[in-house]
């Protein structure tokens, strides 16, 4: 029995030592767990403060050296506070998911990305950073594009004469940027209308002037690629037309002067015709008077030896009719001018030709132009001379010689002979000496 007791005592001693060792180790293990719990509580406190800073939950979820709701002294509140933290964490997760979906939706809606953005890539911690960087880069590119467009629109507005500020165009206020865009749009519409009017006008001009002459087609002005070349060709051809119009103006001026000259000649012709009529009537009256006188005069028809006339007649051509080939001179019967006298026409010191007096009136006479003697155009104002019968028989006119016509009446010459003929001696006056002519031109 004593032996058994001794064995039991030894066994009890061993068990006591084991229990002591296990107790110490168990204490250390609990200490470790306590420290772990404290660290977790402090970590939870930090997380809550990060997730919900300044919130009621952050004020409640405190460690406070083990005395707070997360401390080891308030185990009874731990479940409540952890439940609240879990709810808040779920709300934060839901917020994250919503933000991810919203950002992905915005990125896809604005078509900023090369490929559609999946919301999972934004809520996944492994991929969200890269994806957000891509979205940020795309947003920056869109922003740069926005600024560039605003700057370009501002420059365009300045060119068009519309005051548009870039700040207005990049404003997020729709009223502001819409007002600026409307100003630009109104100006563009106005210019477009003017452009249409110009195009219509040019098309009309081309149609009127002819596409072949202008070397352009009206449809080319409506094509921006061909409009510039067409306008250049159009301008060149317009310059040619303008030059032609200048020539037309000159020609019109010349036509006006010719028409004035024609009217003046027509008036002269009218006067001449009136004179011819008047002279013709006068001739008829004189012929009647002559007939009466012949019936009343005594028989004195014995031939009287005629004497050559020696007076000099000088007059001036007052009218010329080229169609009928006669002239009117301002001397007549009162100046002793008689019919069939060949008078010399001269201008200054130039011999023009001869005219044959056919009708003599009191103070003027009508004479035919002798074509074969004509060396120039007989004009109004030219001088006419008759130097007497002897001179006419013996002296050629200026620039030619004179040959008396055999059918002359009263020994007077009606027309000079052609140039180079010799004066005839059988005219009855051939013995007269030639006299020196001095027309006094």
């Amino acid at each position: 029995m004593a032996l058994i007791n001794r064995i039991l005592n030894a066994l009890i001693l061993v068990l006591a030592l084991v229990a002591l060792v296990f107790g110490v180790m168990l204490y250390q293990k609990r200490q470790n767990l306590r420290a772990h719990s404290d660290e977790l509580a402090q970590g939870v406190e930090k997380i809550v403060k990060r997730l919900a800073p300044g919130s009621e939950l952050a004020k409640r979820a405190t460690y406070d050296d083990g005395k707070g709701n997360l401390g080891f002294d308030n185990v009874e509140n731990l479940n409540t506070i952890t439940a609240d933290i879990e709810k808040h964490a779920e709300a934060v997760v839901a917020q994250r998911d919503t933000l991810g979906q919203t950002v992905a939706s915005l990125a896809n809606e604005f078509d900023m990305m090369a490929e559609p953005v999946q919301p999972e890539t934004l809520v996944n911690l492994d991929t969200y950073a890269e994806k957000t960087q891509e979205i940020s880069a795309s947003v920056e590119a869109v922003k740069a594009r926005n600024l560039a467009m605003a700057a370009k629109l501002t420059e365009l507005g300045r060119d068009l004469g519309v005051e548009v500020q870039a700040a207005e165009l990049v404003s997020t206020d729709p009223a502001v940027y819409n007002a600026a865009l409307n100003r630009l749009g109104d100006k563009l519409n106005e210019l477009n209308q003017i452009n249409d009017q110009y195009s219509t006008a040019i098309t009309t001009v081309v149609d009127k002037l002819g596409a072949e002459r202008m070397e352009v087609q009206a449809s080319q002005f409506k094509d921006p690629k061909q409009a510039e070349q067409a306008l250049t060709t159009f301008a060149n051809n317009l310059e040619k037309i303008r030059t032609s119009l200048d020539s037309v103006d000159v020609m019109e001026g010349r036509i006006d002067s010719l028409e004035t000259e024609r009217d003046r000649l027509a008036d002269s012709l009218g006067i001449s015709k009136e004179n011819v009529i008047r002279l013709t009537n006068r001739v008829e009256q004189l012929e009647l008077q002559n007939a009466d006188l012949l019936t009343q005069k005594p028989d004195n028809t014995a031939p009287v030896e005629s004497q050559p006339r020696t007076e000099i007649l000088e007059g001036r051509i007052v009218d010329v009719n080229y169609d009928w080939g006669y002239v009117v001179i301002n001397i007549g019967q009162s100046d002793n001018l008689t019919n069939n006298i060949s008078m010399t026409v001269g201008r200054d010191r130039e011999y023009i030709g001869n005219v044959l007096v056919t009708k003599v009136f009191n103070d003027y006479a009508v004479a035919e132009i002798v074509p074969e003697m004509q060396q120039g155009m007989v004009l109004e104002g030219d001088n006419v001379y008759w130097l007497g019968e002897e001179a006419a028989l013996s002296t050629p006119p200026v620039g030619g010689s004179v040959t008396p016509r055999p059918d002359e009446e009263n020994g007077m010459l009606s027309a000079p002979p052609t140039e180079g003929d010799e004066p005839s001696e059988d005219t009855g006056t051939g013995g007269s000496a030639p006299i020196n002519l001095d027309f006094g031109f």
Partner: protein
Amino acid sequence: MLSSKATFMINLVSLLFFLAVIALQMLEVQKYTGSYFGFFQ
């Protein structure tokens, strides 16, 4: 002095007590570590 039988009974009770203490310690450490012998982990 106690009799041998009484000493034996006391020793037996002491032995059972320490066995119970060790068993409780092993149950406690099993809760912390998941093992009855988690003292050595």
